């Protein structure tokens, strides 16, 4: 089996309750497109978002390590590959109709690893195309401050916001009349939340967890896939990707991502699943 772990900052600009989930500017919720900014597009961007606010983390997720047959391979071609989500994935909770906050599925989910002109990709496929959402709901919602702090190297988002606010306030005098409204909205948001012990910065230590089976046909759109998987023929059986989103920074409209993609070889026999109820080490199988 090959397992590739990936991590980095992602972005999603979306409205929040009680706004309609597809509200383009944000009105009643705490997430807004400020004056002059483009509409909220709801898309989860793993790379190069079309718009990013100043003084916010660089968006980009990459493969951090590759483990092949139980041994880390520091020279593997997939190491450092850019991780993309194709086809405009979105959180599809739809104001709780599909899923409550913290449980939303990401649809579509088409994972793609790119290294130069070569790529490796595969997507989820709904069991029933007429009902393509709920089987992809998040499996967990965890308040995990230590984990998030380790992953992001940010012990306090409140401190980050204070520094950011200071930078933005220093830019006010030099801002053009058209830039000033957004700058004022942004600094007002930061000030109001900092005055309430962080306010929505309280979401920072939380992470949502998903566990997906990628089932689309292997290699259909992938030029150079064989070069990314030397001496390795991937199975057509589902590949597993377990991942989490956390460290939500509402001002940056960004969050941290971590995950692992597991690919078995074509003749690799997976372990038989254990009995259905929660397994114990002492179970007789």
């Amino acid at each position: 089996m090959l397992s590739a772990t990936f991590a980095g900052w992602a972005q999603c600009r979306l409205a929040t309750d009680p706004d309609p989930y597809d509200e383009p500017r944000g009105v009643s919720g705490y997430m807004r497109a400020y004056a002059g900014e483009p509409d909220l597009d709801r898309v989860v961007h793993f790379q190069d978002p079309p718009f990013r606010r100043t003084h916010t983390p660089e968006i980009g997720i990459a493969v951090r390590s590759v483990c092949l047959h139980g041994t880390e391979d520091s020279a593997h071609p997939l190491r450092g590959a850019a991780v993309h989500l194709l086809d405009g994935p979105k959180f599809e909770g739809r104001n709780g109709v599909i899923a409550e906050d913290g449980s939303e599925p990401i649809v579509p989910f088409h994972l793609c690893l790119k290294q130069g002109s070569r790529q490796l990709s595969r997507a989820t496929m709904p069991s029933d195309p007429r009902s393509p959402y709920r089987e992809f709901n998040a499996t967990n919602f965890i308040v995990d401050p230590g984990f998030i702090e380790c992953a992001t190297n940010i012990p306090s988002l409140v401190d980050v916001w204070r520094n950011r606010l200071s930078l933005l306030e220093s830019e006010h005098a030099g801002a053009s009349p058209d830039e000033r409204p957004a700058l004022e909205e942004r600094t007002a948001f930061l000030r109001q939340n900092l005055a309430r012990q962080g306010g929505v910065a309280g979401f920072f230590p939380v992470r949502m967890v998903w566990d997906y089976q990628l089932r689309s046909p292997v290699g259909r759109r992938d030029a150079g896939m064989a070069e990314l998987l030397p001496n390795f023929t991937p199975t057509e059986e589902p590949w597993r990707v377990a991942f989490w989103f956390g460290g939500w920074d509402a001002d940056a409209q960004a969050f941290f991502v971590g995950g692992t993609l597991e690919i078995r070889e074509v003749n690799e026999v997976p372990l038989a699943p254990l009995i259905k109820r929660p397994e114990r080490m002492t179970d007789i199988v």
Partner: protein
Amino acid sequence: MAIDTREELINALHEACEIEHSLLVQYLYTALSVKKGLDEGLTPHQQRLVRDWQARMLVIAREEMGHLGIACNLLAAIGAPAKLDRPAMPRGTGYYPFSFDLLPFSDEALYKFLVFELPRGFPPPPPPGADLDAREMQPAALASVAPEPLEYEYIGELYAKIADGFRAIPQGQLFIGPKTAQTANNWSDRMLDIRVVTDRASAIAAIENIITDGEGTPQSTDRSHYSGFLEVRQRYFAEQRFDAARRVPKNPATRVNPEADGPVTLIKNPMALRLTELFNANYGVMLLMLQHYFSLAPRADDAAAETRRRALQLSSQRIMSVAVRPLAEEVTKAPLDDPQAPERAGPSFEIYSDVALSPYPGARWTILLERLDALVAECADLGQELPRVGAIGETLSIMRGDLAAVASGEL
């Protein structure tokens, strides 16, 4: 006329429900009429202002929804059903100096809203188009000369009569409705602040909440509806009353209603007409869900009935976010008649049929699900040209599936 019978009290509460409902749809119409994008001629500065004004008016509209919920609880407490239909617009009322109208964002609309929310003892606001003296209109200055507690100049009289009715009728005879038929303050929107009514004291307290919520108290007038509209109007004046609204009409309608008290602006563009009818149909289904919700009074040991009731509550709330409000915004972008002309249509909030439940409980879920099926089908058809409407239909289809499962006992 003093209220001293249950029937008179019910009639007065019906009137209160109609007024609260009519106020909130007027506020919603005005709020949803505003422009959103720079491509509509707004500068970034104006874009920020307009969004803040819209947000403020939507908060006030949601608080009026809370008042309507309280009025329905008062009805439930005395054994009467919720009152969720309302007269057509435009509508003359005996309580205000002018009619209820659906108006685009404008000085005229803001002036009328200030009159609707005028605290007792406050002078009326300057009429539309007048210069506004900011010093004279500061709520804090006026509060120092206003009586305590503040009451509505207009609707306050109605609620005072209702409160007197609750005092006059012996409470042992009056409070006969099941408490579980009322709505609790368990909606996701914390603005609603809904009170449950169990006796005379809680009824009077609930009425006080409605009366003082709108205009606040002398200590906190800055949170009142009056103060909210005042701030918007003053800022709008200071910004030279720029063109903040889409060209939506006064009192749009999909058809002539002989019960309306004045002329309407008919929507003639075929696509806009279908879209507005779809909006109205969604609005009607939302009201039907709420009527059904208020009709259920589960016993404490009936988990299945509580599940069905909770499903109706959640669906009525969610359909507002996933269908009613998005469709309203789509309608304001559609042409009123000629696609080349600048005039746009508007969400007319027409109620096409009585918001009434079938007298046969076994038929109610069937009827609700049929109405949802019709919405889903129409969304699918219109969605071929308007992708957002297609997505609305998909969401409603999922909602319909969940409600069907709850109704049948699967969930």
